[in-house]
């Protein structure tokens, strides 16, 4: 896929495959295009070229029903307060469903319970800690019972217990046959879960395969992706389109 923003090409012929039961990490430094990639993947940004296929079909409103997305937490702040249950219930809406189902409340509470934050259902999300807010956003994605879960830097600013809870949640989703695509600065608590990584630099794929195990090397300012180092194989280069298969 290719993405242009403000007249500049941000993603250049990026191709990534993700398969069920094998979570994929999108890694890279600041400004490498990780978030642009997932935003284009979910349809929040238009493509300037290429295509997005989800479960073998061109992305459409129909395929969006099978996707659960967790954006960066900063995008969830809004002018009017909202409770956790209101936020999670909004996850039950989508193409052809402008009004939530009758059992929306029960499903939202169940999703919050699964993430260990059921007691916060009626609390204002802006008053919750970073980790709690993150769990609410993950509950909003999971309440859709998605086949593909896409997360944009869910570990940023989150305490260790919340990171471990997130790792357990993603493990369960993956074990039950779900696909996971996750943007990360470093693997952290997700190290045992991630066997496959795509590393981006300046909008290009510079590595596909085993994730870099060094702690956060790809996020360091000035990190050199051009030259291979001990834990990262030589970059691969090929013209691509994003594809998720199950």
């Amino acid at each position, binding site marked *: 896929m290719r993405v242009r923003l403000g007249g500049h090409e941000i993603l250049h012929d990026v191709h990534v495959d993700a398969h069920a039961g094998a979570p994929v990490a999108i890694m890279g430094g600041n400004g490498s295009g990780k978030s642009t990639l997932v935003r284009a993947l979910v349809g929040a940004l238009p493509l300037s070229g290429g295509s997005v296929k989800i479960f073998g079909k061109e992305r459409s409103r129909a395929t969006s029903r099978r996707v659960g997305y967790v*954006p960066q937490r900063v995008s969830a702040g809004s002018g009017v307060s909202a409770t956790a249950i209101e936020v999670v219930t909004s996850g039950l809406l989508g193409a052809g469903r402008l009004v939530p189902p009758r059992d929306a409340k029960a499903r939202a509470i169940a999703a919050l319970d699964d993430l260990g934050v059921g007691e916060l259902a009626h609390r204002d999300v802006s008053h919750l800690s970073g980790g709690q807010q993150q769990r609410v956003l993950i509950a909003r994605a999971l309440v859709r019972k998605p086949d593909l879960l896409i997360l944009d830097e869910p570990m940023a600013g989150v305490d260790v217990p919340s990171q471990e809870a997130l790792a357990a949640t993603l493990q369960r989703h993956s074990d039950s046959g779900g696909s996971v695509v996750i943007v990360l600065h470093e693997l952290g608590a997700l190290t045992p879960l991630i066997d496959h990584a795509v590393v981006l630099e300046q909008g290009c794929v510079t590595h596909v395969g085993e994730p870099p195990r060094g702690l956060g090397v790809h996020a360091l300012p000035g990190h050199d992706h051009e030259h291979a180092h001990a834990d990262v194989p030589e970059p691969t280069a090929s013209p691509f389109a994003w594809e998720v298969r199950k």
Partner: protein
Amino acid sequence: MSVLTDPLVQRMMLVAIMVGVTAPIVGTYLVHRRMALLGDGIGHVALAGVAAGWLAGSWAGLADQDALAIPGAIVFAIAGAVVIERMRARGIAAADVIMAVMFYGGIASGVLLISAAGGSNANLMGYLFGSISTVSWNDVWVTVILSIAILAIGLGLRRSLFAVTHDQEFAHSTGLPVNALNMVVAVLAAVTITASMRVVGVLLVSGLMILPVAISQMVTGSFNRTMNIAMVIGVVLCVSGVGITLFYNLQPGALIVVLGVLLYVVVASGASLRHRARQRREKVETA
């Protein structure tokens, strides 16, 4: 009680209740999307529509030159809302810059058009600051119809409109028709402004949309409750404002907004005192 049997007072109260209940619905979405000033931008464009209606009435030789003012305001306000939303969505300009262009363009066009129609700026005063004391049954029916539309869409699509105004990126991922729902909010704002024009005028209409929401969100942490409480506050403010002007020679629109500001100050002070008391209590408990 004889005041309440006066048909003019009944018309004024009916319009005040309708506007009081509907303006905060749209205001809640605008505040949530951090576009509280959108109402002002559209209001100024509606003023140009009023003047264009005057000009059309003048050209058509209508006895009542005012007859096309409200239809003109509706057409211009909706067109303005659509333009603002499309420019914002396409990132052509920042929202505050678009709004500024609408402010100045709307009011300047309004003054030019009204002078071209042979009128004066005085003819625009009723629309700038409201003129509920001249409301006719025709105005009441127009307000009722517009209010029913706002209630049906603003409350019926509450969850979807919340989803889009709360987190647009997530809404895109779910397949919700984000652009269409954003347009619904903008058009609802335009309709609300034209419906409220008689009561508070285009210069103050944003106050009636935003103040009840600003007050309400200080007492609750829920989006739904914020909207519900804001609707009650909107009705109380409008009915109180209009009611007081039955006994005192004051401008109703300005009084409604001033009452809203006073209530905001009172509730904000109470919230601040409550916050300090809680902090003191927590300090004592920690010690």
